[in-house]
């Protein structure tokens, strides 16, 4: 064993970076194919293969991994192009994406049939293929420089910078871009207190939802004396509508490991776990490969970077339980038990995994740590707002033109995010309607809704808390005017009810009853007492639950009740769904002006509820109508409306 340690190769970061720079200079172009989940589903891999095929056909050479062998001057590597598979580039709506460097050209919605043209015109002749460039929806202008695309231009990608740029299969690309230098610094040059102080000074707060200052969390763990301490990376991204952790783990797994190494040095831990949800198989395999590579290079394991410190990481796959995102539940899960939260204190910093002091941080938090050390706390603090420093990634989804993954400084407003980066709201027919959204749901099942009145609210931890929402993990779901807010509240309630672990009675039974009340509202059984009962119950669940899941489960209901009470009232008292989404409350009527009196609807009606005669507009008898919608689908003149 000792022998293997002595002979173990320890990577020379500076040399690796130099060799990489030299080697990469000999390529004419670097072709980056986005291999994030979105682009993969749209056929990114067949595009990747097609590129290899076409380039070979043209008698040119392409490498898929940078050739870093030291060649003699005369037989220097003779590849023309470097083809790279990257992680998610964020612009999922426009996928599959192909980026060319050094030209900085981004081709969107690329099909295999476009590859020949890209090779012949852009790679060989240096021309643009205009129809594949991003087209600004307003000016119809084709954007040639990818940094000028509004989606990217308005962002501040510091944590995501390398994700979507570097080759996911080549650790050296991460190193060549400055990766692991900060881990080395933390191991060889910094003391534990220095690291904690730097992170505390940077103002970094937990990106998983709670927003607790990371530096303080580390310091609390540091001061607890113990022979064994743990660092856990929480990659149990269960919040529906959020996928930033996934992108980081898949696109830049080494940054997560580097963050964990720095955390381990700060608290003197020797063992780390990455807890990844089982729905992310690609993240699991990429992390495992990254860990193996890091071990081979003396970055993980014993005597890391040749020092007397040891730290190793293991990947633990979750098994599908949202509550495991809660730190004490996650610890129970790693210990092989049911993932149920326990009472705090003791906090994990005192008694965590296997009873030892433990630091638990979210993926995004840890991936930000190396960036902070590199920038310096002072520089990092300049980004963001008074109480929330730095940048935050958001998963922008729902009824918005540009869905995808974005990173913006705290304090950015919804107007900028939805209107500029997101490219506007889209209605059910796909028309763009500017920033005319009905609500933006932030923070998933624990969060709340933002409305038009919050359009210019600088988004940060405290402002969001004040308006009854939360940053949460950062899912931003945009909803257009045609969305029924009661149904959205029901949707989240159904989710938390399903995921409640059952430990606390008020959460287990309370969420069930809240769901039943919402069903009553949607199905037209609600009466005057329902809303009061719902609110009372919501507050009970909030107070009486142990963990974050129960404490925040009523938030979507309370938030929609606060901002869309009139919609609830319409459901309860008028038995009407203003957006016409609730089947049980739908009423159909004929617009007299549009009715051509053809009689088709009357013939289709299974209960003879429609009456009329030739030349006279038809009328629906609400008493008889069973709300099947047959007439609605039958009418050729859009003369029947529901709502």
């Amino acid at each position: 064993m000792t022998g293997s340690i002595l002979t173990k190769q320890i990577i020379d970061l500076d040399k690796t970076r130099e060799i990489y720079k030299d080697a990469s200079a000999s390529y004419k172009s670097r072709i980056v194919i986005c291999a994030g989940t979105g682009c993969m589903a749209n056929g990114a891999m067949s595009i990747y293969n097609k590129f290899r095929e076409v380039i070979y056909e043209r008698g040119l050479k392409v490498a898929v991994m940078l050739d870093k062998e030291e060649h003699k001057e005369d037989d220097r590597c003779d590849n023309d192009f470097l083809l790279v598979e990257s992680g998610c580039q964020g612009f999922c709506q426009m996928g599959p994406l192909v980026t060319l460097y050094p030209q900085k050209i981004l081709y969107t919605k690329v099909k295999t049939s476009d590859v020949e043209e890209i090779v012949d015109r852009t790679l060989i002749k240096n021309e643009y293929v205009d129809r594949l460039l991003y087209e600004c929806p307003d000016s119809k202008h084709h954007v040639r420089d990818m940094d000028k695309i509004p989606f990217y231009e308005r962002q501040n990608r510091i944590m995501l910078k390398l994700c979507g740029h570097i080759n996911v299969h080549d650790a050296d690309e991460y190193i060549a871009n400055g990766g692991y230098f900060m881990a080395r610094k933390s191991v060889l040059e910094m003391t534990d207190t220095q690291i904690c102080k730097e992170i505390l000074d940077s103002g970094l707060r937990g990106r998983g939802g709670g927003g607790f200052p990371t530096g303080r969390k580390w310091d609390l763990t540091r001061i607890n004396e113990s022979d064994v301490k743990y660092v856990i990376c929480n990659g149990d991204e269960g919040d529906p509508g959020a996928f930033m952790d996934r992108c980081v783990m898949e696109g830049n797994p080494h940054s997560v490991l580097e963050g964990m190494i720095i955390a381990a040095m700060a608290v003197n831990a020797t063992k780390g776990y990455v807890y990844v949800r089982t729905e992310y198989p690609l993240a699991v395999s990429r992390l495992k490969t990254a860990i193996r590579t890091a071990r081979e290079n003396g970055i993980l394991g014993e005597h890391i970077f040749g020092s007397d410190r040891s730290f190793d990481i293991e990947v633990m796959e979750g098994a599908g339980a949202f509550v495991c995102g809660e730190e004490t539940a996650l610890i129970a899960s790693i210990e092989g038990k049911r993932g149920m939260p326990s009472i705090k204190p003791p906090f994990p910093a005192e008694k965590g995994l296997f009873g030892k002091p433990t630091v638990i941080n979210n993926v995004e938090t840890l991936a930000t740590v190396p960036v902070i050390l590199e920038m310096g706390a002072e520089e990092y603090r300049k980004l963001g707002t008074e109480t929330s420093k730095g940048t935050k990634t958001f998963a922008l989804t729902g009824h918005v033109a540009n869905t995808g993954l974005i990173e913006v400084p705290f304090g950015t407003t919804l107007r900028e995010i939805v209107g500029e980066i997101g490219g506007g709201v889209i209605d059910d027919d796909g028309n763009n309607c500017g920033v005319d959204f009905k609500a933006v749901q932030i923070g998933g099942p624990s969060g709340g809704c933002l409305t038009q009145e919050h359009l210019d609210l600088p988004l940060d931890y405290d402002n969001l808390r004040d308006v009854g929402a939360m940053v949460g993990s950062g899912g931003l779901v945009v909803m257009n005017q045609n969305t029924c807010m009661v149904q959205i509240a029901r949707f989240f309630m159904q989710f938390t009810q399903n995921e409640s672990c059952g430990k606390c009675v008020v959460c287990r039974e309370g969420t069930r009853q809240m769901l039943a009340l919402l069903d009553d509202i949607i199905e037209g059984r609600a009466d005057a007492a329902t809303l009061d009962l719902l609110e009372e119950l919501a507050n009970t669940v909030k107070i009486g639950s142990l963990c974050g899941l129960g404490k925040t489960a009523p938030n979507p209901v309370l938030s929609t009740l606060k901002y869309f009470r009139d919609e609830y009232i319409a459901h309860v008292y008028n038995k009407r769904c203003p957006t016409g989404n609730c089947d049980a409350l739908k009423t159909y009527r004929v617009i007299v002006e549009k009715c051509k009196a053809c009689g088709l609807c009357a013939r289709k009606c299974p209960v003879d509820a429609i009456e009329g005669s030739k030349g006279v507009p038809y009328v629906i008898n609400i008493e008889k109508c069973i709300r099947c919608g047959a007439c609605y689908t039958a009418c050729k003149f859009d003369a029947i409306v529901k709502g």
Partner: protein
Amino acid sequence: MRNDFPVKFDRVCEVLDKHKCDPNKLIAILQEVQEEYKYLPEDIMTYIATALGISPGSVFGVATFYSHFTLEPKGKYVIKVCDGTACHVRKSEEILKVLEKELGLSGRKKTSDDMIFTLETVACLGACGLAPVVVVNDEVHGSMTKEKTIELLNRIREQEKQENNK
């Protein structure tokens, strides 16, 4: 029913050995066992409990707590309809309804009698940029519509028919 499946305890033993019969590794053990048998047969869970020195109740408790574990065999094609927020607001429910109708499955009945299809909903697959999403085994299909769903189903059925003819 269970007697029809030859229970291969040797694979379980391998998995248990690999994890050194450590009760802390229960979840990983169950995952690997499920990988092998496609579900968690009851006698195997009892066997694991004995080997780890914990009560069968604890093993069963963990197996039923996590949604990834299944105590019943699943079909050859597991179709998952994502019902995360992004998919939900982009009408994933309609797609689920189409699939339920086409496959004759609903509510408690999740697997077709011929063991070809299992239909499930999942909370979020993290492919929100492509909402609504349907996953067949591990293949992601994005921006689904009712028509595309039926097309997808027909493709699988066709493939199945060809395999049977071989």
